[in-house]
């Protein structure tokens, strides 16, 4: 449509929004395989005896893998769209953290304070 005005506009546009090379995709893929396999292995074999330690470790692996996907598959960088994609992402993460931590915190305390949790608590009821 605007080809006669800016013959290279679309080509530049496509490149500006970021593309991975085959190398990028392969690095991302192998990192993902490793970062997926280790948590599955940890849980399936029970390599770490303590459950809360295992939970923290697999959560850490998930966080790292999400960052790997963002960089190698979604091609996130601070420059694309003049930094607006990163701004939108940061805003989303802030809302996400408030929602998740807020919900879990409030509902945990609600359960804790409102519900008779076990036979002992039941006995304490007036």
């Amino acid at each position, binding site marked *: 449509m605007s080809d006669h005005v*800016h013959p290279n506009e679309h080509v530049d*546009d496509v490149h500006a929004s970021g593309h991975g090379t085959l190398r990028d995709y392969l690095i991302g*893929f192998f990192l993902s395989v490793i970062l997926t396999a280790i948590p599955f292995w940890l849980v399936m074999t029970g390599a770490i005896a303590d459950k809360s330690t295992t939970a923290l470790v697999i959560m850490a692996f998930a966080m790292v*893998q*999400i960052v790997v*996907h963002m960089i190698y598959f979604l091609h996130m960088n601070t420059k694309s769209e003049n930094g607006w994609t990163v701004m939108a992402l940061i805003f989303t993460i802030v809302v996400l953290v408030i929602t998740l931590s807020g919900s879990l915190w409030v509902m945990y305390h609600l359960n804790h304070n409102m519900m008779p949790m076990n036979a002992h608590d039941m006995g304490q009821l007036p």
Partner: protein
Amino acid sequence: MTATTADTSHNLSQAQLQAAFYDLNEHDHPEGGSTMLGFWMYLMSDCLIFAMLFAAFGVLGGNFAAGPGPKDLFDLKLVAVNTAMLLFSSITYGIAMIAMEKNQKGATQIWLLITAVFGAAFLSIELFEFHHMIAEGATPMRSAFLTAFFSLVGTHGLHVTFGLIWLFTLVAQVGTKGLIPANKRRLMCLSLFWHFLDVIWIGVFTFVYLMGML
């Protein structure tokens, strides 16, 4: 408004006045120039939908109502295969995008179809799992845990389903119209969508399946 204009006109020349009210150097907006940013905004809002579902699962995930729990229902080997399917589909989509950049129409279509095969395998395994659970009586109505589970995993599955429909549409469009700029833009949007679903799945297998089996 008119009063203000009249006041300032004493101090400003006609050209300055026009410049103040109109953007005379309006630069060219290429077709689809803002599509990628707009689509990213959509993905971020979609991310919030999943945040709500994760929050619901986090709150209700322990309420089994004396029904079956994660250890009775989940099979981690099946989940591992499922995760592998989604990961393979991510890399094959990446290769399709590289073929697209080189303007190889046939290769783009073939790699897109391979991606679709992995996507369909993922969906089939998920539906098999759901069917198995429902046959055992673990329906979404059984307990708050199962309601939250089916809402979260089901919404992700629904996204993959629509992604597949979109993918087949684009294979057909690339077939009829070729790799025109509009189709390239559409393929890039689907690329973001597809990889985004893989990111959500990381959260699902970590928080729902792995943490449930601990």
